[in-house]
Each structure stands twice: as structure tokens, then as C-alpha cells.
């Protein structure tokens, strides 16, 4: 276990609480799926540190593009879990009025824009969001989050190349979670890491332990500062693991139990909790209490979302054109 010196204890507890909320949210959805017909979701369980570390480094004026495995990004950006669940349950109270479902939730009010579930779709649009920001002289950066699967799409290379040529304020965050839908990453690329691919575009890059939330935060803060100082894009790779199957209907039976066990040992929440306990900032009861609070928050969100009305019938035909 790494020892921590660079962050204040209260901040670490806050990071832990945010990760626990995401975990409770994902566990709630897994329970729903186990019980019967439930919203189709792509779980981000296991990747909480990557999401929370990144969002802790970003500023309110920054914008984020993400994809379908986005619950962690949204919750870490302070999304209301009741409005997220409302979206999943097809309610008018959802962030997109129930028209998105789980797969492409955008929340402009949180700076989470243009979410696409087409693998790599966000990479195609992030350059335009960053160009608009640069031309307007608006402060801040654009973060584009994607997986190792998207990195093997052609659009990844088109996007990095253009961002480098046009010097766009863009933080590419590749969550290398070892799985691309039903395909193990090792079958799709030579080598382990995405970050070095940035070298060929003359782009700064780093790979960080994506299950160490404090390391992710520090790396993302450094990357953000670099982008602000130089105006150049940056590729950050977070090395992490998707603990559940590709989507809620996938029981993950094809995943090697040994692989699963190895990654379970570096679970991001367990890691930070152990560090805080070793440091004397948290005890078993405190951790238990934090877990209960997270589950209670999700339970209340579930009740609120369940009680919310469905979209009006007329909503079928609205929002197509401006």
C-alpha cells in the first residue's frame, strides 16, 4: 500500500464517500437486474477511483464528454442520483427527460456534454468542443473520457492528431479497464498501454494506477495544469478494471476467476479505506457508516425516481429540431 503525503485527510474521506456512492448506485442496479426486468446499464463498478480522481481534479468551468459507462463520471461530478435513476427508469425527471435511458446521459448543467454510446463518438466531438472554447478564449479545459475499446477505433487517432495539430485544450482520459465489450483487451492490441500511442502525435501522456484515487487525482491535476499552461492536449491512461460484465444482462461467466480475484485485491475502495485506517483516520465502524449512508442515499433516490411521472405522451415528437 502506498503511503499518502500530498492530500489532506478530509479530502481523502470525501473521495472515499464519492466512490462509495458510485458503488452503492451500481450495486443497486445489479440487484434490480438480478430481481427481474430492469433498465439496461453498463456498470462502472471497479472504476470508481478513475472517475472520482478525475472529477476531483477538474474545475466547474471544465467540460466533460463521456460514454455509456458513465455513472461514475456523472456522480463524481455531483449529479443527483434521483435524476440519474429517473433517466434509467424512463421518467420525465431524468437528466434527459427520459429520452436517453442509461446509455447517453448528458447533463449540460454539470458540464457533461454530448455523451455518445457509439464507441469513440465522444472522441469525434471533443475536438469541436475544445475548439469552441479556445476560439472564445474561455478558461478551463475539455476532458474526454473513453475506454481502451474506443482507442482501437480509427477516430481515436483522427481526434488525437487534430487536437495536436490545432493545439486544443483537451485532456484525453483513457480508462483502460481490460475489457472491450466481450473481448479481452489483450486480444485487440499489441502491448498493454494506450498512453504511449500519444507520442506519435507529439502529445504528452502518462499512465497512472487507475485504482488509486489519489494517484489519479494528482495525475489529472498535473495534466490539467499542463494543458492550461501550454494550450496543448494530453493523454492520461488510467489502468483499472471493469468488475462486472459488459452490461447488466452479462453475468461475466466468460471472465477468468483468477483474473477477477487478482483485480479484486486492488479494489479502489478497499485500497483507500485501508490506507485511511492505517493512518488512523477511519475505523471499521466509520467505514460501515459511510457505506450505509451511501446505500441510504441511493435508496431514497430510487424512491424519488420511482415516484416521478413518466414523460408526457407528446414528448415523443419534441426535441428533434431546434
Amino acid at each position: 500500500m502506498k503511503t499518502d503525503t500530498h492530500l489532506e485527510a478530509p479530502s481523502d474521506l470525501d473521495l472515499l464517500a464519492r466512490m462509495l456512492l458510485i458503488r452503492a448506485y451500481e450495486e443497486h442496479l445489479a440487484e434490480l437486474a438480478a430481481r427481474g426486468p430492469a433498465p439496461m446499464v453498463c456498470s462502472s463498478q471497479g472504476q470508481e477511483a478513475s472517475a472520482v480522481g478525475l472529477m476531483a481534479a477538474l474545475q466547474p468551468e471544465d467540460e466533460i464528454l463521456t460514454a455509456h459507462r458513465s455513472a461514475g463520471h456523472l456522480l463524481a461530478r455531483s449529479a443527483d442520483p434521483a435524476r440519474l435513476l429517473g433517466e434509467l427508469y424512463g421518467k420525465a425527471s431524468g437528466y434527459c427527460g427520459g429520452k436517453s435511458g442509461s446509455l447517453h446521459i448528458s447533463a449540460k448543467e454539470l458540464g457533461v456534454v454530448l455523451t455518445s454510446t457509439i464507441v469513440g463518438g465522444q472522441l469525434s466531438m471533443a475536438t469541436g468542443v475544445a475548439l469552441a472554447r479556445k476560439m472564445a478564449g474561455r478558461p478551463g479545459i475539455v476532458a474526454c473520457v473513453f475506454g481502451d475499446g474506443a482507442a482501437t477505433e480509427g477516430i481515436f487517432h483522427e481526434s488525437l492528431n487534430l487536437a495536436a495539430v490545432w493545439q486544443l485544450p483537451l485532456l484525453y482520459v483513457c480508462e483502460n479497464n481490460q475489457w472491450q465489450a466481450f473481448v479481452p483487451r489483450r486480444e485487440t492490441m499489441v502491448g498493454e498501454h494506450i498512453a504511449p500511442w500519444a507520442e506519435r502525435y507529439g502529445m504528452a501522456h502518462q499512465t497512472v494506477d487507475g485504482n488509486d484515487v489519489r494517484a489519479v487525482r494528482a495525475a489529472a491535476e498535473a495534466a490539467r495544469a499542463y494543458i492550461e499552461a501550454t494550450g496543448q492536449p494530453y493523454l492520461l491512461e488510467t489502468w483499472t478494471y471493469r468488475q462486472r460484465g459488459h452490461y447488466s444482462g452479462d453475468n461475466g461467466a466468460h471472465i477468468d476467476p483468477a483474473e477477477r480475484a487478482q483485480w479484486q485485491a486492488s479494489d479502489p475502495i478497499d485500497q483507500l479505506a485501508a490506507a485511511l485506517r492505517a493512518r488512523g483516520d477511519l475505523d471499521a465502524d466509520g467505514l460501515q457508516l459511510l457505506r450505509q449512508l451511501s446505500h441510504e442515499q441511493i435508496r431514497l433516490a430510487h424512491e424519488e425516481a420511482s415516484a416521478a411521472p413518466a414523460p408526457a405522451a407528446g414528448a415523443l415528437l419534441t426535441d428533434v429540431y431546434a
Partner: protein
Amino acid sequence: MQTLTQNDAISQALHEEMARDSRVLMFGEGVATTRPDLLQAFGPERVRNTPLAEAIIAGTAVGAAASGLRPVIDLLYAPFLTYAMDALVNSAGKLRYLSGGQFNFPLVVLAQTGAGWGVGAQHSHNLEAWFAHVPGLKIAFPSNSADAKGLLKAAIRDDNPVLMFLDMTLGYTPGAVSADAELITPLGRAHTQRLGRDVTLVSYGKTVATCLDAAKQLEADGVSAEVIDLRSLKPLDSRTVLSSVRKTGRVVVVHEAGPMCGIGAELIARVAEEGFEHLRAPARRLTSPDVPTPAAPNLEAAFVPSAAAVRSAALRLCEGVAVL
């Protein structure tokens, strides 16, 4: 009034709209190189060359449009749109709806197409019907320089994604164009270019002129043909077509695009659904055959519906009217 080719009319529209609105910018393959006048007037921030990479050009336009800019992108030739499909179809077309109306996509895509230049099927393929099938998009296809300018200005001012197809031959065809910088051609409104009583000829793009030629020939045959230029394919102004068919009872839809699930199929379906009782003869389509655009001049000429073919189709519908 001035005389401009369609290409020059497009340049003039770009100039006027970029001068009018500082949010308008243009990028694409060779845009800064081939439009030095725009580059000089508006600078390298707003007039940009790009890599030859249609997917990222289109995606960048979508992201920029949602973030306060009003991009115009030049993807050169319609078949190159296939590389840009995700950004145009899944993002520009759908993300307004999927997000519950959180984003607008005020962007314009330019693409040339059309037989007559011997460039073959990977530079000439009239794909407009593909995009007509996509919710959230608008489509314009001018038949002359004045409408090219007016439609482009309307497209740039529209808050939705607009694809504008430009026929390569019309690019070099001169036509009268108003110098009024505020004159626009509204999207979604067809234009009746010639009034007639006996048969309605409907077309867009280059084959509007084919229909006008055929209408002149039909006049000598004793047949009075009305010619409707659709100008926009989405929204599709079927009301103008239906009200003409109510009068004439006969309709021929003419386009260079292939027959399967094309604009002609859609229009005739609407006539069958909403104006069947007015038809005095079967509705007809004249299109290119369902083959890729050939390069050889004789094959390419045979590929596009001719005025003679339009005349002959109209005459068959007008038996008893024509004086032959």
C-alpha cells in the same frame, strides 16, 4: 442582379454570412487553400484546412456547433460522407433528442455529387435519400445559382444540422443571382418554376433543367407541364406537389439518385396516401438505374434521366391530351 456560377454563389453566401456573424467558421479538406479570398477576409482561425479525415471533420463540427460556433464544413464529394456518418447521423441527428433538447447543432455540410465529370462512383453518388431517413437533419439540393446562395444562407442561419448537396455540373453553370445580402431561400419550401395544367414534373438539382427542357418539348406536343423544383428534401414540401397533382392529375418525379427508397418513392407514396383520388394516370419515377455511377461518357450520359425520357414518360401519362 449579377451572373454567378453556383460555385461563385456559394462563395458569396459564405462571405456574407461570415461577415454577418462572427460565430460562423469554415473548415475542411483544402478549404483555406482553395478559398484564399475567405482566408484573407476572415483569417486562419475561421478558415481552416484539415487533415483528409472526414470523421473528425464532421465530429469537430458537431462538437463546435453544440458549443456556440456555427461551422460550415466542406467534405468535397458525397461518397466521402460515408466516413462522416457517425458524427452526422448518430450525433448531429440524434443528440438533441436523446439529451431532451439540451443541445443545438447549427452546422452546415457541403458535398458535391452528380454525373457528368467522369469521376466515377466514389466521387459521384447521390446519397441524399440516406440522410432524408435520419431524424434531426435537414437537406437542401439547389438547382441554380440563386437558390444555392439563398439556401446556404438559410442553412447557416438555421439552428439545426443541414446537409447541402451541390451538383458538380451546376457548379460551373452561370445564373442570375440577387446582390441583396438579406435575400434567403427558405428551407423546406419548393418552387414552382413553370405553371402547367396536364402533368406535374417534380425534381431537384440538375434534373430540374431536364424537366424544364422536357416541358418545352411537351408544349409542342400539346401537353402543358408544371415543373416543381423541390430545393429542400427535408423538410419535404409535399404540399406544393399535392396541390399541383390535384390540378394536373398526373405526376412524374425525376432524379439522378437511384430508385430504391429514394425521394421519388417517398413523394409518390405521399401522393398515393393523400391525393390518390386526383390521379388520372399512374404516378411515375424516372431515376438513374440501380448501379454505381459509371465513368465512360456514353454510359454516364445514359445513367442520368434525359429530357427525352421525361417527355416520353409524360406523354404516356397524357394519352388523350397530347396531339401526336
